[in-house]
C-alpha cells in the first residue's frame, strides 16, 4: 500500500466532520520517495511507529515534533545512516527509484550517493575548504573540472564570496555558520537527488540561519529537501509539506500552510501554537 493512499485514508479518517483543509484527492506533486508504514526500533524499543508519508520532488518537507519523538531516527534511516548504529531494526518500505532502500539487493553506498545529508552540528573534514568540497566527487570518480565544481557548489551554498581567497586554508578556521554552509556545499557537490538536513540551523545565529533559509529556497528548483527542525517559524516559512511526529507516531502530515493554520488534529494545534505563543 502506498503512502499516498494511506495519506488519503488517514485524512478521511481523522477529519470526518472537521474543516475542509485537506490536500485534494490526489497528491498534488510528484513523489520522489515514499515512506510506507515504517517502524524503527533500537534494541527492541520502538522509536518510530507505522509512519507513512510521501516526499514530494523539488519541494521542501519539514519534520517537526517534540524532542525524542523520532525525527532524527526517521531522517537517518532514509539514506541508511542508521546502519552504523548497533541494534537498529527498520520495518516497512522506503520506496525510492523503484526499490525499497532496505532491500537486500540495494547498495547502501549508492543510496547515500544519491541521498545526501547535512548534520545538526557542522562536521567539516580537517582539510582545506577546497578539499572538503572535492572529497566526495573525487572518491566517486568525478572526471570534470574540479575547480568549476568547487566554485559552483560554494556559490550554491552562498559561501563563495566569503572564501574565494582562502580555498586552500583549513576549513576549521571558518565560523560555525560558514562551516555549516560548507557542509551544505559539500553535500551539493555530489549533486544529490534528495538532501536530508537534521536541524541544520540549530547551532547558528539568526543571520546565518536566514542565509541558510534563503539558500534552501533557491535550492528547491534543483533538489528535494527534507529538513528536521525545532523552529516552528522556520518550518512554516520554508517548507511546502510538514509532518508532525509525537512519540514515534505520525500525528499529521499535510501542506504546511494548512497544517499550521487549520490543523486537523488537536495535538498538532497545541504543539504548533504552543511554540508560537
Amino acid at each position, binding site marked *: 500500500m502506498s503512502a499516498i493512499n494511506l495519506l488519503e485514508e488517514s485524512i478521511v479518517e481523522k477529519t470526518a466532520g472537521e474543516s475542509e483543509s485537506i490536500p485534494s484527492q490526489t497528491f498534488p506533486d510528484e513523489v520522489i520517495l515514499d515512506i510506507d508504514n515504517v517502524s524503527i526500533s533500537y534494541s527492541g524499543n520502538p522509536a518510530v511507529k507505522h509512519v507513512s508519508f510521501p516526499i514530494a520532488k523539488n519541494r521542501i518537507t519539514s519534520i517537526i515534533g517534540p524532542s525524542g519523538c523520532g525525527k532524527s531516527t526517521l531522517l537517518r534511516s532514509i539514506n541508511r545512516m542508521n546502519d552504523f548504529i548497533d541494534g537498529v531494526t527498520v520495518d516497512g518500505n522506503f520506496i525510492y527509484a523503484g526499490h525499497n532502500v532496505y532491500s537486500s539487493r540495494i547498495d547502501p*553506498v549508492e543510496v547515500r550517493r*544519491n541521498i545526501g545529508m547535512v*548534520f545538526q*552540528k557542522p562536521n*567539516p573534514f580537517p582539510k582545506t575548504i577546497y578539499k572538503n568540497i572535492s572529497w566526495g566527487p573525487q*572518491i566517486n570518480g568525478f572526471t570534470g573540472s574540479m575547480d568549476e565544481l568547487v566554485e559552483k557548489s560554494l556559490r550554491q551554498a552562498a559561501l563563495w564570496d566569503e572564501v574565494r581567497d582562502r580555498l586552500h586554508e583549513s576549513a576549521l578556521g571558518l565560523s560555525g555558520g560558514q562551516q555549516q554552509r560548507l*557542509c551544505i556545499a559539500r553535500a551539493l557537490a555530489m549533486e544529490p537527488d534528495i538532501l536530508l538536513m537534521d536541524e541544520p540551523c540549530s547551532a547558528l545565529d539568526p543571520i546565518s540561519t536566514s542565509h541558510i533559509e534563503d539558500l534552501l529556497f533557491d535550492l528547491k528548483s534543483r533538489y528535494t529537501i527534507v529538513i528536521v527542525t525545532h523552529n516552528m517559524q522556520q518550518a512554516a516559512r520554508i517548507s511546502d509539506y510538514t509532518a508532525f511526529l509525537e512519540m514515534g507516531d505520525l500525528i499529521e502530515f499535510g501542506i504546511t500552510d494548512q497544517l499550521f493554520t487549520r490543523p486537523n488534529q488537536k495535538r498538532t494545534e497545541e504543539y504548533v501554537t504552543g511554540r508560537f505563543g
Partner: protein
Amino acid sequence: MQMREMETLKHSDVNQAKKIDIRKTRVRWGEFLIESSLGLCAMISIFTTGVIIFILAQESLGFFEAVSPFDFFFGTSWVPLFEPSSYGVLPLLWGTMLITIGAALFAIPTGLASAIYLSEYASPRMRAVVKPVLEVLAGIPTVVYGYFALTFVTPLLRKMVPGLEVFNALSGAIVVGVMILPTIATLSDNALRAVPDSLRQGAYALGATSLEVTTRVVVPAGLSGVMASFLLAISRAIGETMAVTLAAGATPNLSLTFLESIQTMTAYIVQVSMGDTPAGGIAYQTLFAVAGLLFVITLILNIVSQWILSKFREVYE
C-alpha cells in the same frame, strides 16, 4: 525585557544586603605544600638529567682527546678492546640502524593495520579481548624476547633461510619488531578512536565506502597521533638492549644483509659494562662516547617528532 530588568534589580538588592569582600585574607598552606613538593619532584628529574649529560660530555671529551672525531664518526672498523685498536663507530651505528629499520618495516604496517582493525572494524567484544593482550605483550621484559629470539625464532628461521648465522640481525629485527608492535597498535588505536564519529558520518553520507572513510578521513585526521606512535616505537627500537644483544650477537659488522651477526650501540655498552674493562682507560671511555652518540640520536629523534607532531596536528572540535 521587563522581566530581565526586574531580575537585575533583585540581584543588586541582594548584593547590598550581603557584604562581599574579595580581598586576600588567608594563606592556603595545603596548596603551598603540595605545589612545592610537586616542584621538588620535577627538580629531581631535571637534576638527574643534567648530571647524566655532564658526565657523558666530560668522559666523551676525554675520549676525543685520544681519538680524533673524524676517526670515530667515519671509521669503518670498531675494535676498541684489542690491539691494534680502532675506533670507527659506523659498524655499531649500522647495527642499530639495521635492527631499527628491520623492526620498523615489520611493526609499522602490522601495527597500523591492527590499530585500524581495532578502531574501525572490530566489535566491542573483540576489542575487549585484543587490547589487554596487546598491553600484556608490551609489558613482557625485553630479555624474555631475547631468549624467545634465540631459542625459537632463530632455529625456525635457520630452517627457512640458508646461510643464517646463529646470531643474526634478522632474528633481532623481528623480535624487536614484535616488541614495538603493541606500542604502535595501542597508541595508533587511541589516536584513531579520538577522531570524532561525526567525521566518519560526514564521509559515509557522501557515499564513501568503509575503506575510503578509514584511509582518507580517519587516518589523515588521526595522523599526528599515528606518527607519534611510530616515532616512539622507533626510539624504543633504537634504545633496545637485551633482546638485540641476545639475538643479534656482538660482532661489529657493516654487513648489508640481515644474515650475519652484528652489534648495536646498546649491545656494545652492555658488553663493556659487564666485562672487566678497567675504569679510566680509553676502552672504558668509548662507553661514554657511544652512549653520548646514542643520546644525541634519541634527542634529535624527539625533536623531529615534536616538529612533525606540530606540523601535522589537525585540530577538530
